[in-house]
């Protein structure tokens, strides 16, 4: 199971990469494995205002459909359109080419409530 050290995590299995006031978000290796082969993805619109822990994207596999929650409040400034046509990329590269969206967050304090790599490992292992 690949769980990179340099990322923050959520209980709902998103990873978060903080860069200044921006956070890149995707699903973890654990999540893509549990979801199994992804066949459809719905992403939020650019510019959408979102609130921490609000469901804003949907990932569908042959098993079921799963809500994806934004880990931080703010504005969606970028979505990964490439994965719409090739959703299998999220299975293959959940931390790289298979990221989902970037949120420009409002409140730095919210970062404190994200899980550290150790906390996340405790959650899933």
């Amino acid at each position, binding site marked *: 199971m690949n769980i990179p050290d340099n990322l923050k995590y959520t209980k709902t299995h998103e990873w978060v990469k903080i860069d200044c006031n921006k956070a890149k978000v995707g699903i973890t290796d654990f999540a893509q494995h*549990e979801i199994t*082969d992804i*066949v*459809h993805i719905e992403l939020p619109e650019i510019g959408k205002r979102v609130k921490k822990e609000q469901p804003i994207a949907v990932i569908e596999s*042959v*098993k*079921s459909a799963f809500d994806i929650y934004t880990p931080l409040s703010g504005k969606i400034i970028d979505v990964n359109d490439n994965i719409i046509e090739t*959703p*299998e990329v999220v299975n293959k590269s959940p931390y790289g080419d298979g990221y989902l969206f970037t949120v420009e967050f409002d409140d730095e304090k919210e970062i404190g409530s994200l899980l550290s790599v150790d906390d996340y490992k405790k959650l899933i292992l």
Partner: protein
Amino acid sequence: MEKLLNELSTECCPAYSLDSDIEINPQVPESLKRNLSLDLPNISENDLLRHFTNLSRKNYALSTTFYPLGSCTMKYNPLVNERIAKFDNFAKLHPYQDSKTVQGVLEVMYNLEKDLCEISGMDCFSLQQAAGAHGEFSSLLIIAKYFKSIKQKRAKIIVPDSAHGTNPASAALAGFDIVPLKSESDGSILPEKLKEILTPEIAAIMLTVPNTLGTFEKNIPEISKIVHGNGSLLYYDGANLNAVMGVVKPGDMGFDIMHINLHKTFSTPHGGGGPGSGPIGVKAFLEPFLPLPRIESKGNEFILNYEKQESIGKLKAFFGNFPVILKAYVYIKSLGAKGLKNVSEQAVLNANYMLSRFKDKINVPAGGRCMHEFVLAPKKLFKNAVRTLDVAKRLLDYGYYAPTVYFPLIVEEAIMIEPTETESKKTLDAFVDTLIKIILEEASLEPQKLKDAPVNTFVGRLNEVEAARNPILKWK
């Protein structure tokens, strides 16, 4: 695989013959006359008969196999009811006929509404909805309209994660925001947790009873008190009514509005693409909002009332799926109050019998008792990368229809089993023996058998991922 009709077609000679000297009405203009030959498959009548007979023999159906599909109530539906639904007196009526000429039909619908009120403890019913989710959706429109009528802004619906998946979908479609509520390990709701998320914006909470883990919600009186204290409404997803008929009534427990699936509980086969019927029941204060037309009894006559100012309007062509309504009526009248109670008791007994045989061998997340269905969580027993999907596929090799898998979502690798009241102990035992053998023996000793399954079916394991990613939806 059976070929398509187009693939069976031969070039040599047409399988149909039309009179060449057919007289065409001289008023048909030249431009509308066909001058190309008909593009139909050329198949002899006997080959055509064989094609359809062969297809029918490849069916997995309740009439050939045990069908323990959790959450779907795949029970035996009396075939005589199908026959009654096809009586000319019903089947050949036209929905535009004057209501004076279809009094019998209106009487059936009127009486069924009354019977459903008696079974559910609600005050009024509407039979127009075409399926369970349609019932949910129309109920949510009623909830929205009700709060509008009393000038309250309530835009949110609470849905526990142990509710049916259609609940949040219906609420979203009706324009509400969803507030999820995490349930306990048996799918029940903790009143304290509910209190925490209950704000003045909450219009209603939707409870599935029994819930998707097959347990009865034990805190209903308290939930009802809290919810109503907040001015919100209580919704009953009655898709699992097969477990509680004649035992409890949602109306008595404080529910304000609900739906029932006639095509599960009341004698119409579930699945196969419908038609279904998802009537909704309400307490009297919500009656003005029910869809139109309402069937009313006026003197010696039944009439259709289209004149109700506050109604949410029309939801379905004409009056709903009448044959399904008729079958439900016949079923209820045949069984009577005692018979319906017996249905539920037997359904619960069958499920508990199976659960009692599984519970010492396979993890049961909701405990050792259930209502009409239960969930197994075999994940810890799996080695060799075996998954629930492989177990389900292997069951096909033993001639069974697989149970519901990966639902409810709150149980990892879930297997959801609903035997229904119409199966014998012998059938239940044989299925339990087979499933235990697959999970406890084959999965560890011969995992490849599971990975390769099914091998005894007309087609092997289908590539579900490719089918979803690149569906081919037409011939050529």
